[in-house]
C-alpha cells in the first residue's frame, strides 16, 4: 500500500512540473476585454509666422479637429483645458501637461507663406503617454485657397497613423441636390467635399437626374437623366463639366450605371420589351454585352474591388434579393436570405462587405453583410433609408434618409460600419443619391 502511495505522489509531482517551471518565468496574463471609446486628443492652433498665417493656423486646426472628431473615434480636448501652450513648433513637448488633461495624442503644427505666396503647413503627432513622436513630421505646400484640402490631408495622416487604416477626409461626394416642394422637386447634380463644403453644381435643374456614380479615379461621373423623356446614361467630365450620352438601342431604357474598377467599363440595367437585364459596355467603343437573361428584373449592379464579380438585385425568387455572379455573367448565387426586400447593393472598397438597403416590416434599413451573405447587420432604421455608398477606406457609409409627410425632405447621412456615429452631412437644402469618390491625389 505504501508503495502505491509513494508512486502516486511521484506521479503528481511530475504532473505538476510545468506549473513549477511556470513560476520561474515572467508573469503572464491575457487581456481579452477592453473598452471602445473615442481617443482624447489635443490639436492646439497651428503656430503662424505672420498675422495671416496665424489666422490660417487657427482655421486649419479647426478643420482637422472637425475631421477627427467627426469620425466618432476621437474626442478633442478643448483649448480651454490645455495647460501647455504651443508657441513654437520646435519647442519640446511638455508631456506631463498633456497627460494631466488626459490627452492621449497631440498634434502640433506651424503655418507660413513662402516667397511665392504658397502655404506651407508643418505638423507632428505625439503619443503623449509613451512620450514620443508618432512617425516623422510632414510638410504640405499648396495654394492658400486650398487650405481646406491641406487640413484634410493632415487629418488623413493623423487618422492613418493612429488607427492603422487610410483616412477619407480629402475626398469628394457627388450627389443630387434637391429643391422645391415634394410634388415639384427640382434636381441637379452637385459635387462637394466629404464634409459638405465647397459645393459645386454640375448640371442645371431643367431635367430629372438620378444616381450619379464616381469613376474610380474621381475624374468622371456617370448618371441617369430624363432629358429626352426616357432614362439615358450620361458620362460627365468633372473638370470641364462636358458630357456625352452613352450609346444605346432604340426603344430601350438604360439606367443604374456603375463603373468597373478599371474605369473603362460600365455595367448597367437595360429595359427592353418590359424585361430588365444587366449589360456591360466598353466606354471607348460603345460595345455592349449582355450579362443576364432572365424574365425577372435585374438591376443595381456593383463590381467587386478586383473587378471579377458583380453583386446585383433581382426579384427572380419572387421578392428583390441580392445575388453575386462572375463579371462576365453566368450562374448567379443568392446571398440574402433574411425576411424583407433587399436592394442597391454596393461592394466595399476593402472587398469584405456588401452594403445594401433593406425594407422590412414597413421600415427601411442600411445594412452590411459578408460577401457570402453571412453576418448581416442592420446599421440604421427609419421611414426611408436607401442608396448606400462607401467611404474610400471602407469604414463609413453615406446614404439618403427621407423624412415622412408632405414636408418630408431627403438628406444625406453617414454611419460607421459598427453602427455608431450616425450623423447628418451638412448640405444646402435637400440631397440624395450620394456617391463617395476616391481620395484625391
Amino acid at each position, binding site marked *: 500500500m505504501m*508503495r502505491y502511495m509513494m508512486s502516486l505522489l511521484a506521479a503528481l509531482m511530475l504532473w505538476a*512540473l510545468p506549473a*513549477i517551471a511556470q*513560476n*520561474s518565468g515572467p*508573469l503572464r496574463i491575457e487581456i481579452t476585454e477592453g473598452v*471602445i471609446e473615442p481617443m482624447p486628443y489635443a490639436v492646439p492652433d497651428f503656430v503662424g509666422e505672420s498675422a495671416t498665417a496665424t489666422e490660417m493656423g487657427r482655421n486649419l486646426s479647426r478643420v482637422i479637429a472637425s475631421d477627427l472628431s467627426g469620425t466618432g473615434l476621437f474626442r478633442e480636448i478643448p483649448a480651454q483645458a490645455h495647460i501647455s501652450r504651443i508657441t513654437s513648433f520646435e519647442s519640446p513637448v511638455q508631456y506631463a501637461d498633456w497627460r494631466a488633461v488626459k490627452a492621449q495624442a497631440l498634434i502640433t503644427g506651424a503655418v507660413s507663406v513662402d516667397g511665392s505666396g504658397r502655404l506651407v503647413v508643418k505638423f507632428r503627432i505625439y503619443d503623449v503617454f509613451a512620450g514620443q513622436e508618432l512617425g516623422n513630421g*510632414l510638410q504640405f505646400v499648396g495654394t492658400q485657397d486650398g487650405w481646406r484640402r491641406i487640413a484634410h490631408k493632415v487629418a488623413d495622416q493623423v487618422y492613418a497613423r493612429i488607427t492603422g487604416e487610410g483616412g477619407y477626409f480629402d475626398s469628394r461626394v457627388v450627389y443630387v441636390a434637391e429643391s422645391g416642394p415634394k410634388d415639384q422637386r427640382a434636381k441637379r447634380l452637385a459635387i462637394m467635399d466629404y464634409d459638405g463644403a465647397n459645393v459645386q453644381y454640375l448640371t442645371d435643374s431643367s431635367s430629372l437626374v438620378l444616381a450619379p456614380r464616381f469613376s474610380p479615379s474621381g475624374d468622371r461621373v456617370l448618371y441617369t437623366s430624363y432629358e429626352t423623356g426616357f432614362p439615358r446614361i450620361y458620362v460627365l467630365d468633372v473638370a470641364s463639366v462636358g*458630357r456625352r450620352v452613352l450609346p444605346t438601342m432604340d426603344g430601350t431604357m438604360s439606367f443604374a450605371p456603375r463603373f468597373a474598377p478599371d474605369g473603362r467599363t460600365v455595367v448597367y440595367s437595360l429595359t427592353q420589351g418590359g424585361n430588365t437585364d444587366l449589360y456591360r459596355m466598353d466606354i471607348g467603343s460603345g460595345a455592349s454585352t449582355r450579362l443576364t437573361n432572365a424574365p425577372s428584373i435585374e438591376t443595381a449592379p456593383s463590381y467587386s474591388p478586383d473587378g471579377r464579380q458583380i453583386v446585383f438585385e433581382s426579384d427572380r425568387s419572387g421578392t428583390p434579393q441580392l445575388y453575386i455572379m462572375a463579371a462576365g455573367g453566368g450562374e448567379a448565387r443568392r446571398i440574402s436570405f433574411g425576411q424583407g426586400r433587399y436592394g442597391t447593393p454596393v461592394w466595399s472598397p476593402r472587398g469584405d462587405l456588401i452594403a445594401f438597403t433593406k425594407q422590412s416590416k414597413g421600415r427601411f434599413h442600411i445594412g452590411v453583410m459578408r460577401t457570402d451573405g453571412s453576418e448581416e447587420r442592420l446599421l440604421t432604421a427609419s421611414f426611408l433609408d436607401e442608396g448606400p455608398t462607401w467611404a474610400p477606406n471602407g469604414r463609413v457609409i453615406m446614404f439618403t434618409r427621407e423624412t415622412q409627410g408632405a414636408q418630408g425632405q431627403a438628406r444625406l447621412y453617414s454611419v460607421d460600419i459598427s453602427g455608431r456615429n450616425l450623423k447628418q452631412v451638412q448640405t444646402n437644402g435637400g440631397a440624395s443619391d450620394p456617391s463617395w469618390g476616391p481620395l484625391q491625389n
Partner: protein
Amino acid sequence: MPAGPRLTGRAARGATGVNTGQIISGVGHLALIGWALIGGVFQSAPPPFEVVQATAISEEEFAAIMDRQSAPDAVADVDTPEPPAPGEAAPSLSSEADTPPEAAQPDASAIPPPDPAPDVSQITPPAPAEVEDAPPVMEVPQEDTAVMVPEVSPRPQPRPAPRVAPEAVARPEPDVRVDDVASPEVTPDEGAESAEEPSEATAPEEAATEIVTEAEEPAQAAPSASVRPRSRPARPAATAEAEPEETPQPETTTEPETPATDQSAVNDALAAALGQAQQSSQAPSGPPLTGGEKDALRVAVQRCWNVGSLSSEALRTTVVVGVQMAESGRPEIGSIRMLSASGGGDAAAKQAFEAARRAIIRCGNDGFDLPVEKYDHWRDIEMTFNPENMRIK
C-alpha cells in the same frame, strides 16, 4: 334477439327520472323569470335631473338675436368663367425625343477648378526635449531650518498591550504536554510486530497571554518568502533503514519502516521534478500571485485598453507585450516591447501594440495594485492582448 339499440339499466332509470326533474326545473325557472320581470331587475334607475341655468330676456332682445342669426342674402348674379375657345389646338406630343438634347449647361468656367494637391515632404525631427517631466527638486534653505523641531523624532514606544486579565490565573492541567512540535500519542499496539515506545501527546501552545490586534501586527508578520525546497539529499550508499535527518523528530515519533527501494524511487522522482524547476538561479521565491491578484491586474489594464480607434485589421491582431515593472507597481516605459504578434500585418501589429502600450502606461501611471512581497513574481510581465471579443460583429 330484437335488433336495434338497447338501453342499459342505468340509462333506462335515467330516462324515467328526467321527466320529474324537468318539471321541477321548469317550475323553478318560470318562477325566477317572473320575479325578474315583475321585480324590476332589468329596470335601471332614472337618470338624475340636469340643471340648466336660464336667463329671461325681453321680446326686443330675442328679435335682435334672431336678426343676427338670419341667413345672408343670396346673390343672384355670379360671374362664370368663359369656356376656352374651341379653335385652339392641343399641344402635339411626340415620342421622337431621341435627338441629342440641348439643355442649358452650367458654364464650366464658373466652376472653380479643384484645389491643387499640396506638395508633401518630410520635415526634420525636432530637437530632443531639454525639459524633463520630473518636477524640479526644491533646495532646502539652510537658514530656515527649524530649530524647535528635533531632526529625528523619537520613535514612539509601543503601548503595552491590554491583558486579558490583570493577573495570570492558574492554568488548568493541560491535556497534552506543551512542546514546539505536535506529535500524536503513541500507545503500544499489541498486534504490531515491532514494539513501539509509548509516549505522551505533545502540542504547541494555542493561546497567548496578550491580545495583538490586526492593526498592531507587524507588517512583515507573514514570511516574505517561502522556504525553498531543499536540494536532493545525498543518497546513502547502502542503508537498511532510511531515517530523515533534516527534520529533527521528537523522541516519541516513530521511525518509518518504508523499504529503502520505495523511498529512493520517490526521492528520484522528487529530485527530477524539483531539479528542473530550479534550473534558473533567478527563479522567484515565495508564493506566486493568487488568481485574484492576477485578475485585479488584468482588470486594471483592460480598463485602459481602448480599441475604439483601431482598424479592422488591428482588431484581428493579437500582440504579446513584455514589460518590466518597478517595485512601486509602475511599468518601466522604456521596457515596454512587442514580443510577438499574430493575425495581422506589420502595420496592424504596430497599431495594436501602440494601443496596448497606451493601456499599460495610462493605467500603470499611479502604479498597479500588486503585492510588494511578491515582487519577484511580477518584476517581468508578459501581457497578451487578444481583441477577439472586441471585434465588430
